[in-house]
């Protein structure tokens, strides 16, 4: 036991510990998936869910079985897939942003990336009359890219990486500008008002395969890119000078990181609406389990993000029956205390 090494978390000690943690997280994810499939206004037992998923045609006479099947396959299955993709996308995007900016408070929502998406979606809905998700996904991605680049430029103004305070404030300022523009669009056009309002709450209700399929390739590409980048992010964590001395191209890593964040956060936001704090919380938990290695942080985030989002979605279905609370509201209520706790810790903030 070396004294400078913290050993309270299981994964920090050995490859075996990390593998066990990985298995535990996978098991958690499976549990969350089944919860998401089984819980709702029509609660079912697990074998009913399993039967509905595996059986082919149901006899027409069996009304109850047919209804179960419809609820599971047509409504809850796409919703669960959506939750997995959104959770993984936001969590990994958060992990990358935190690694690149060395800012533990970074989150696609706080840094304004999601409000970039929201702004471009509002433009698409308000000015161009595009109301289908497959239509506005491009706008969400473009908005995410725009916001990532702006925040990155502000972060690197003055020729060095900005402190957590500057970057956070830059995100706030950018979000303020964009939200002002969104409300300008909303208030001038009642029709788009309702459409944007629903999307903006970050709800998974009534989102089917038509929302998921067009965005799926972007999120998957983002996840692969993130895994490929993890090694370079480790080098970046040593500082820009040391990273380039080790033969890693700092600029290339940063550019690819912005691309990955754009794909992940933009794709997730296009599907689920602006959901805040997932990208903030999950990497912290992942780092606590995994230690400083970005490859493991990103892998764990990829599993933990979906767990958090699915559980939040299930909670949203349960706590306000017969109504539903959007998943974005639940994550905000869970995430805000986490952010406050992080900033109240007496230790100096910095990665």
């Amino acid at each position: 036991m070396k004294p400078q090494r913290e050993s309270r978390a299981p994964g920090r000690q050995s490859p075996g510990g990390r593998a066990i943690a990985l298995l535990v997280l996978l098991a958690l994810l499976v549990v969350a998936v089944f919860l998401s499939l089984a819980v709702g206004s029509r609660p079912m037992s697990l074998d009913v869910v399993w039967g509905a998923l595996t059986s082919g045609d149901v006899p027409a006479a069996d009304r109850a079985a047919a209804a179960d099947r419809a609820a599971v396959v047509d409504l809850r299955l796409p919703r669960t897939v959506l939750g997995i993709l959104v959770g993984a996308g936001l969590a990994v995007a958060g992990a990358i942003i935190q690694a690149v900016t060395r800012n533990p408070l970074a989150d696609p929502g706080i840094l304004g990336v999601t409000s970039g998406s929201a702004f471009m979606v509002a433009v698409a809905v308000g000015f161009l009359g595009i109301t289908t998700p497959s239509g506005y996904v491009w706008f969400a991605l473009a908005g995410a890219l725009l916001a990532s680049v702006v925040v990155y430029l502000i972060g690197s103004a003055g020729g060095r990486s900005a402190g957590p305070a500057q970057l956070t404030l830059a995100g706030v300022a950018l979000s303020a500008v964009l939200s002002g523009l969104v409300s300008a669009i909303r208030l001038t056009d009642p029709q788009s008002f309702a459409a944007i309002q629903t999307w903006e709450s970050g709800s998974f209700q009534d989102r089917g395969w038509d929302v998921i399929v067009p965005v799926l390739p972007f999120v998957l590409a983002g996840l692969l890119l993130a895994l490929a980048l993890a090694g370079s992010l480790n080098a970046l964590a040593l500082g820009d000078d040391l990273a380039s001395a080790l033969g890693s191209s700092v600029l290339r890593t940063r550019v690819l990181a912005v691309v990955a964040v754009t794909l992940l956060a933009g794709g997730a936001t296009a599907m689920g609406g602006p959901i805040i704090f997932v990208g903030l919380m999950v990497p912290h938990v992942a780092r606590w389990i995994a230690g400083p290695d970005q490859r493991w942080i990103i892998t764990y985030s990829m599993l933990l993000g979906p767990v958090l989002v699915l559980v939040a979605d299930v909670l949203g279905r349960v706590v306000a029956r017969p109504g539903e609370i959007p998943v974005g509201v639940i994550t905000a209520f869970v995430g805000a205390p986490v952010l406050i706790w992080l900033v109240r810790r007496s230790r100096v903030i910095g990665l």
Partner: protein
Amino acid sequence: MTALRPSTGLVTRRGPSRGTVTAVVLGLLLALLALVAMGLGDYPLGPVEVLRALVSDQGFDTVVVTEWRLPRVLAALVFGAALGVSGALFQSLTRNPLGSPDVIGFSTGSFTGVLVFTIIFGGSTLGTTGGAIVGGLATALVVYLLAYRRGIQGFRLIVVGIAVTAMLHSFNVWLLLQVQTEVAMSASIWAAGTLSLVGWERLLPAAVMLAVLVPVVLGVAGPLRQLELGDDAAAAHGVRVEPARLVILVVGVSLTAIVTATTGPIAFVALAAPQVARRIARSAGLPLGHAALVGAMLLLAADVVAQHLLPTALPVGVVTVVLGGIYLLNLLVREARRAA
């Protein structure tokens, strides 16, 4: 020997100081802008006609100017001044150019209050006013307490503000989904911050309340200057630091609360006005008088833009939040450059 002479020259110079001159110039510009603003609209009038309509009865012209346009312009002036002073108080208190009621979640909290009061009591003016004040003050208090840890540190206050704001914002969005679209839309117009609903009957009570606060603001101006030098220096000059700080905080929050209750949250005037004022007056501290004048100027100009220069009339808060956000981004970039 020259090094011993006071370098500012304020003591020896004759005639009015730069502060006085700039204040007078600002005042004149403000009057001119107000006259122009009262002339704009579907029934356009020149500044001279406006002036004539104000001082004597010109029939329809006078009705248009005094009944329709004067309350709105006066509201922009009075509320802008109040926001400017409020921002100057906050920034002096936190010794941070980013300290502002916006940053600590006041606006979002007051919107939550308005929504909750509207849902419980129906959409009355009293409900809106009460909800805004209760919601805003409660949020500010919660943020302050959560950020308190052996004193208040600027960065922590801001991040706690972000967290609480994000939480309330998503709650607001959800509440808006629960009500009918018309209710949601009118609530959203309020939430964007607008002067279009302000007539004499809403302006006068707010103006009276603000007028009551003026002597208090003048009273804290002295201690505020001392506090800018540091707590110890202020204490050495006989200022009771903690009570003074509390009074300044309460006055600053009250100024914003009164404005917000009447117009809805108007972002960033409180943030930008004191800094602009400081640069105009070239003073070391934040000049309260200049902050009031610049705040009035900013809000009136933003309202003219929102009302007349855009293709469709928008709430003034939309304009101030966009311009103010850009201003803040610019401020951050310049700070980063200077630090490098």
